[in-house]
């Protein structure tokens, strides 16, 4: 939406098709809780934000990208404030900021603990002002139409009508989020199935740094529902079964930052505590504790009201009085479509990507909390502008030839709908994929299980051909949407597992038991994963360094 707004504001003549498989208010940004980072205080600086981000990325983030990001972050957050976003305020009416993991000072703007919800709704409501943003709601994009190396639009399945249509355009921006649903235990909602990543991948654009999957330290056991980092920002303590604040008492690399260390380190710490036998047993596996009881009811009700509600409804616990059960849970994908700082995809002209779908790379090997919401705004805007500039110079293409692509897609979808006879079920393949991913691409990884996962996912792609479906209806067929999503998820799973197996070091969120050190000599590069019918083809891309040379990452 940020890209669409940027595009129509930049050029009074163009129109933008906003195509989404769900209504805009349902996008998963809505669930983000903690905050959005941007330098706001006198005691802060762009340089500090930049360094925090570079260090947090374990020096894999591209520093020119990070420079641009920290410069534009405060402007974008201000712009959103002008558009009505109800940021929480200080006494003097200025925007309030809170502390967040890996940030050297308070720079996370917040709106109670529903920042994603407020940002999404403010953006959506602001976008309603523009008649030139034409919405295509509940349209599932099945393919990018690429003609002669240039993108000409998309084919989209109208979920309600069951009809495939071509939506033609001179540029396409992919903002479809990540693919957390390839894992069984994730904060992500049902819709996060890596659709945009798969679309780009199948069109010849490599996926970059896919091995870096962020495990958020504090998710509810069982459901995986996110308990925001802001709980730690406001002073929450993480404890083991003995009530010990192990991030303080033991050495897990977070130093004085303790609970405000970066997410990858805290997730590893919790896993290690559990493996050492200091976790608490439950029907959903072992967990640790997040203790907010010392914060007091008033602070929790004013700064963390949604957390309180979530704990009561989904964990049966009132955080004012009892500690919250938590364990690491898949949350975010640092990797994505290989794009440059303008959001331009590598390999197909006219194609752009922004947000979690893209890998610019802002977040490198590990993302700092509250950077990603700002990323959506900063690079959403930039990609929108880049797309407009490209579109102005681009030719339209041959409509008749493009229509044929649409017809072919209609045929493919019609054949898939209600397909009977094979022995496989959606739930079966999906479950096996998720199990394989958890086994090989968990918080701690090793050679044997990663290779097994690579083999398992390849096998699952074969099994997908024997899928058997039950819903033959044309109207609002959600089963066929789930089948298409599963296909996309398998693509992403292949990229993640293959990329992970190729990186023989531990960096950021990619931690190996059999290669525990970071290896800047051999592995200071971005992993590229190209689609190939014979199996993913891996490649390397240089990291753009800048004023900060890689150093030991200790807090």
């Amino acid at each position: 939406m940020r890209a669409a707004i940027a595009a129509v504001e930049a050029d009074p003549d163009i129109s933008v098709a906003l195509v989404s498989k769900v209504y805009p208010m349902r996008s998963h940004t809505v669930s983000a809780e903690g905050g959005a980072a941007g330098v706001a205080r006198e005691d802060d600086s762009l340089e500090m934000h930049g360094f925090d981000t570079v260090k947090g990325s374990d020096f894999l983030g591209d520093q020119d990208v990070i420079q641009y990001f920290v410069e534009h972050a405060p402007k974008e957050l201000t712009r959103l404030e002008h558009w009505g976003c109800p940021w929480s305020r200080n006494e003097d009416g200025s925007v309030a900021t809170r502390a967040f993991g890996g940030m050297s000072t308070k720079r996370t703007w917040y709106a109670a603990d529903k920042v994603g919800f407020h940002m999404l709704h403010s953006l959506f409501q602001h976008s309603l002002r523009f008649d030139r943003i034409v919405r295509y709601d509940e349209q599932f994009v099945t393919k990018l139409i690429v003609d002669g190396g240039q993108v000409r639009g998309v084919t989209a399945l109208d979920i309600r009508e069951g009809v495939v249509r071509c939506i033609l355009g001179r540029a396409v921006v992919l903002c479809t989020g990540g693919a957390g649903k390839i894992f069984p235990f994730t904060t992500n909602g049902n819709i996060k199935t890596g659709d945009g990543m798969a679309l780009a991948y199948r069109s010849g654009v490599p996926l970059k740094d896919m091995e870096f999957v962020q495990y958020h330290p504090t998710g509810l056991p069982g459901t995986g529902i996110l308990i925001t980092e802001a709980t730690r920002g406001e002073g929450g303590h993480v404890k083991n079964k003995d009530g010990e604040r192990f991030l303080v008492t033991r050495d897990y690399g977070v130093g004085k930052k303790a609970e405000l260390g970066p997410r990858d380190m805290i997730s590893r710490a919790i896993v290690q505590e559990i493996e050492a036998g200091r976790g608490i047993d439950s029907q959903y596996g072992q967990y640790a504790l997040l203790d907010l009881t010392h914060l007091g009811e008033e602070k929790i009700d004013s700064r963390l009201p949604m957390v309180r509600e979530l704990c009561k409804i989904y964990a049966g616990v009132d955080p004012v009085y009892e500690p919250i059960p938590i364990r690491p849970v898949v949350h975010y994908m640092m990797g994505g479509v290989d794009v440059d700082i303008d959001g331009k995809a590598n390999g197909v002209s006219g194609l752009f990507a922004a947000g979690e779908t893209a890998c610019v790379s802002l977040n490198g090997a590990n993302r700092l909390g509250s950077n990603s919401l700002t990323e959506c705004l900063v690079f959403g805007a930039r990609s929108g502008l880049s797309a407009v500039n490209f579109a102005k110079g681009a030719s339209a293409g041959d409509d008749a030839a493009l229509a044929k692509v649409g017809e072919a897609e209609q045929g493919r979808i019609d054949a898939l709908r209600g397909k009977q006879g094979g022995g496989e079920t959606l739930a079966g393949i999906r479950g096996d994929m998720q199990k394989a991913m958890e086994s090989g691409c968990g918080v701690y990884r090793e050679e044997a299980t990663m290779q097994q996962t690579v083999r398992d996912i390849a096998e699952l792609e074969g099994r997908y051909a024997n899928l058997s479906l039950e819903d033959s209806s044309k109207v609002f067929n959600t089963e066929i949407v789930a089948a298409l999503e599963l296909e996309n998820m398998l693509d992403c799973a292949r990229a993640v597992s293959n990329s992970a197996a190729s990186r023989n070091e531990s960096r950021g969120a990619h931690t190996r038991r059999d290669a525990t050190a970071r290896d800047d000599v051999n592995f200071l590069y971005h992993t590229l994963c190209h689609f190939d019918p014979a199996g993913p083809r891996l490649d390397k891309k240089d990291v753009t360094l800048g004023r900060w040379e890689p150093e030991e990452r200790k807090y």
Partner: protein
Amino acid sequence: MADAHPHAMAPTRPGKTRTAPPQRPPQFPMGGRYLAYTAFGWTGLIYLLLGFLVIEAVWALGDGAAAWQEQLLRYEHPVYIAFHVLALASVVFVGVRFFRLFPKAQPPRIGPAKPPPQSLIHGTLYAVWVGATVVFGAILAGGLF
């Protein structure tokens, strides 16, 4: 299940697939909390009848002292008494329901002025209501004027 208005929540341009008609809330009109709402609406009938009774009384006043005495006798008839008890109950019901809503219906600010706290609004409404009832009662009973 009963149909709602056929165009309830329909978009200006209907979608391209056939839809089933919208259904009314299943418990409407007599189930659950809707019963109180429906009763609230139906009290209008009582006020309509009360209105006719007021006209009847005013007419009698206009027709002279004898007519008025006849009218006063009518009020002692059990049906009249029963009706007025019902009317009192419905007025109290509507009053309480409306007073419960009234504080939250105050906008947060008109210009610089903010509304008083909810308890003060509640208190004032009931005080004025009871006070007015007492005063009018006293007048009608002949204790005042």
